[in-house]
């Protein structure tokens, strides 16, 4: 495969970075090098922000419906390029092709949702707040916004934010993950074809210098971040210091409780995809499996048998259930956690350390791994592993399961499998995580509901997409008027 050097997209032009620092992008399934990504400079961030700032005045005065029409066209263009984007995503990241398609679908759903701008950006008004005085609130765009997304959803995550920012009249800068920059580059090729006005949407590749360039630039009004908790905290703090709006989504350690009355036959498929979909590299992935009650052995045996039947292989092959993790470095990290689990005394009942995929000796494969008899204080029950590793923590009661969910610090998602409405009510009412699955293993809100957790999983006020995000990208200007 030919190795391409990726370019930035600034002011409607593809621009080669002046940086000499380059990162290598490899195919996760083969280990083969497929692209080079420039680690751009803060100066290049400033160039993009200047272009976005310059485009802002004309763009904000473009009528909302006219702005929405760009997104209608973009939706069509994304549909036409659907397979191409999905395959690029699978190649660089390694998630199974159907999962990649699902991600691209979710990206497009945000484009669809944003086109409701003529309703969603409406202000409000009331007459006679005092005699002869009327009051109105107008929702105005603020200027330039930026997004710093993670590697695990390279297509979708920037689109939790970008469409809403831009359709409300702001201009935008995306810094794709330096680990998987090809997908967003492919997406920007489509944007370029659709022909947004120059400077409205920009992309600068890079790493820390670009992130700091975004945080330091005084013309950036707000930042949307998704990634690890330490970085999310850093971004939140820096944005606070520089007066930027911020929504900062961090890590997760999600529990999936299985009550004794759960319908196991119906639940098993989603219990498996919850933990092993995208090779466990999802902030909504199940991480701790919590059988509740005294008789967990039967469930665990059935679960392990079903997991063993999963097919691991080339993620472009539709028969494959799970592909590799994103990189050699990440594979080592996941393997390190498995070693840690053994060292701390958990019982390894399914070992994915020596996963071999025929024909792909250099792929970053980690097989499905299951630990039983994990205790809440073990590292594998506390840290976000972000790999295909299940930690089974057995508990006797629902209260213990709730306590476990609330003691992780992270509070992104929690799921329960049961047929008991009372148990569901107690669970959803009392757990801290703010995305809850009931007989669903991945509690992923769609574009018209907010996405984000609580506790150490989210820093900010307004979450990703949903109705509220229109507020994140607008300022409500209040007009109080009296006429003599």
């Amino acid at each position, binding site marked *: 495969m030919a190795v391409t050097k990726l370019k930035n997209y600034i002011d409607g032009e593809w621009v080669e970075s002046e940086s000499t620092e380059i990162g290598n992008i490899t195919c996760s399934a083969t280990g083969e090098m497929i692209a080079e990504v420039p680690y751009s400079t803060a100066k290049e961030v400033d160039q993009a922000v200047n272009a976005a700032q310059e485009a802002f005045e004309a763009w904000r005065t473009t009528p909302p419906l006219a702005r929405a029409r760009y997104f209608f066209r973009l939706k069509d263009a994304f*549909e036409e390029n*659907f397979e191409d984007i999905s395959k690029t995503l699978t190649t660089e990241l390694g998630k199974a*092709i*159907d*999962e990649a*398609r*699902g991600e691209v*679908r*979710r990206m497009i759903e945000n484009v669809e949702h944003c086109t409701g701008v003529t309703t969603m950006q409406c202000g409000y008004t009331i007459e006679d707040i005092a005699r002869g005085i009327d009051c109105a609130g107008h929702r105005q765009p603020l200027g330039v916004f930026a997004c710093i997304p993670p590697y695990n959803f390279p297509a979708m995550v920037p689109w939790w934010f970008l469409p809403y920012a831009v359709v409300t009249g702001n201009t935008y800068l995306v810094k794709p993950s330096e680990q998987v920059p090809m997908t967003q580059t492919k997406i920007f090729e489509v944007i370029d074809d659709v022909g947004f006005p120059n400077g409205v949407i920009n992309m600068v590749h890079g790493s820390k210098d670009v992130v700091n360039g975004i945080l330091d630039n005084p013309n950036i009004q707000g930042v949307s971040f998704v990634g690890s908790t330490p970085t999310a905290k850093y971004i939140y703090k820096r944005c606070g210091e520089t007066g930027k709006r911020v929504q900062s989504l961090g890590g997760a350690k999600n529990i999936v409780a299985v009550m004794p009355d759960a319908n196991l036959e119906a639940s098993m*498929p*989603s219990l*498996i*995809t919850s933990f092993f*979909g995208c090779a466990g590299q999802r902030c909504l992935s199940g991480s701790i499996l919590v059988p509740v009650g005294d008789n967990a052995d039967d469930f665990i045996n059935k679960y392990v048998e079903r997991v063993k039947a999963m097919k691991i292989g080339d993620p472009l092959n*539709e*028969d494959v*259930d799970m592909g590799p993790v994103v990189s050699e470095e990440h594979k080592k990290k996941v393997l390190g956690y498995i070693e840690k689990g053994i060292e701390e005394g958990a019982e390894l009942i399914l070992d994915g350390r020596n996963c071999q995929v025929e024909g792909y000796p250099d792929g970053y494969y980690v097989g499905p791994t299951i630990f039983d008899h994990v205790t809440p204080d073990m590292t594998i029950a506390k840290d976000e592993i972000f790999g295909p590793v299940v930690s089974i923590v057995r508990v006797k009661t629902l209260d213990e399961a709730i306590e476990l969910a609330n003691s992780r610090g992270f509070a992104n998602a929690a799921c329960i499998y049961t047929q008991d409405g009372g148990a569901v009510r107690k669970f959803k009412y009392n757990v801290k995580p703010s995305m809850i699955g009931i007989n*669903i293993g*991945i509690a*992923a809100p769609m574009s018209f509901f907010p996405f984000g957790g609580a506790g150490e999983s989210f820093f900010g006020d307004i979450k990703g997409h949903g109705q509220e995000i229109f507020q994140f990208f607008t300022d409500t200007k209040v007009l109080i008027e009296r006429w003599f």
Partner: protein
Amino acid sequence: MPLKGFGVILTFAETIETENKDFYLQGTSQLPEGEVKSFLYELIKEKEKQIKQVQRVRRENVAEMILEPVEGFTRDRFLVNLSGVNAADPGAVVETARKIEERNLNYYREAAKKMKSHPEVASALQQLEKKQKKLLSKMDSL
């Protein structure tokens, strides 16, 4: 080979539709002018529409919740060996066309059942089944 999920079920539908279309294209290049050849042109158009429909269903309905595995469904029963069919013989072409369109009909019928927990997908597959029925009844009049 198992058809174990949403994507592979739709992709196999695309595969069999494409296989049928390719067979008809071969027929149009070898058959003499006549009723059968004209009908093959009609079938090619119909297959192109159905391929697009299958692709659209796959694009628009994929989501995490739909990626749960499907069990007890394999492609072997729907494989048809087209080698050795004389594409220049109108009778053989019609007979094979009927066989492969019936295969598609059966496939859509069973796939719809397998996807019944996702009503939009099941409904789209049922629509495709209905189209197959119409094609087969047209063939009866040849």
